[in-house]
């Protein structure tokens, strides 16, 4: 419960409600929430759940932009609700909805199964070039080798970039920004040898060419990852392979 100061400010929060078992379509409900300047939008919806309507459903965990659970559309823009503050919207009403482009499970909770499948499909782990024994010691990398992938490794799988991507909205089969950024993160890691397997996905019809270089994915990323950069670097990689695969065959071309 926020500390009540002498002048209690109250903000209207309009929340998207949807219960697939009883509702035909999503609708919105407005709550009046007392707030203090240090309260995030997440704390606002937590207030609603604790004091106004216990049936409101949403995901959250860390409250500090690390876990990536609390992504929501806030006034139509994908944000982590834990690092978005009610004071920045007051005195106007703030509108909170489930992330765009995903099926809604209930209220602000989206079904992330499609994203999880994509994440699995990119094999987001280092596939060693050759077996390595403990006796061989740790892998060593130069700062340059680290720089190639470091920013892409900051992804927290919050899916804001998918909610931002108009092409994912048009075709949910598109592998999309975060999965491509993570795919790229492993492909350019000097310890990894799994690039060829992953490139099959990059070059496929579900791959990078759905992207029309809008760049909104990189804009909304709360961890300053640049997925648009990963996607577009891989357009070049895929195009080079497309035209040169007959010159330098290496198998696997379909």
């Amino acid at each position, binding site marked *: 419960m926020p500390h009540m100061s002498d002048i209690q400010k109250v903000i209207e929060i309009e929340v998207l409600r949807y219960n697939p078992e009883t509702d035909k379509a999503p609708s919105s409900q407005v709550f009046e929430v007392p707030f203090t300047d240090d309260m995030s939008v997440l704390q606002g919806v937590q207030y609603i759940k604790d004091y106004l309507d216990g049936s409101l459903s949403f995901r959250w965990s860390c409250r500090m932009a690390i876990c990536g659970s609390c992504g929501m559309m806030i006034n139509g823009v994908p944000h982590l609700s834990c690092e978005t503050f009610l004071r920045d919207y007051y005195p106007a009403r703030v509108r909170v909805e489930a992330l765009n482009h995903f099926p809604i499970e209930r209220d602000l909770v989206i079904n992330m199964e499609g994203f999880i*499948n*994509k994440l699995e*499909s990119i094999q987001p782990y280092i596939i060693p070039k050759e077996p390595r024994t403990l006796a061989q010691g740790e892998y060593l990398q130069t700062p340059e080798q680290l720089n190639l992938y470091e920013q892409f490794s900051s992804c927290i799988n919050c899916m804001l970039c998918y909610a931002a991507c*108009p092409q994912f909205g*048009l075709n949910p089969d598109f592998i999309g920004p975060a999965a491509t950024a993570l795919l790229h993160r492993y492909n350019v890691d000097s310890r990894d040898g799994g690039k060829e397997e992953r490139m*099959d*996905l990059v*070059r*496929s*019809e*579900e*791959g990078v*060419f759905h992207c*029309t270089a809008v760049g909104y994915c990189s804009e909304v990323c709360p961890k300053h990852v640049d997925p648009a950069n990963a996607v577009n670097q891989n*357009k070049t990689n*895929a*195009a080079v392979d*497309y*035209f040169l695969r007959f010159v330098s065959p290496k198998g696997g*071309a*379909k």
Partner: protein
Amino acid sequence: MKPTLKRSNAPIFWALFGAGGMLSALFGPMLVFITGLAIPLGLLLPADALSYPKMLAFTQNFIGKGFVFAVIALFLWHAAHRIFHSLHDIGIHAGTGAKLACYGSAMVGTVIAAYALLSIGF
């Protein structure tokens, strides 16, 4: 994810789009200036710079022919790709028909340009 992945043919169109974009960024503004402003208004350039005999000689030259062909064909492929991918913004959900119309007109323009340039001779 589908278990078997089909390689996308998009690189063909993407490469033409990219080449056209690069070319239009480099030469587009200059061509607009020469053909749309400088010659009609008599600025900077000699009045007969785009006269029929000069342009005929230009397009009969091997390099001139190549330049005109590249500018026309690649600009068209660039435009076709961009228009195709922008269709949903104006409420047209692009399918095979839209694809044929966009890339087909670029193809027709390319063929006409090639035919015209070749029929001028060398």
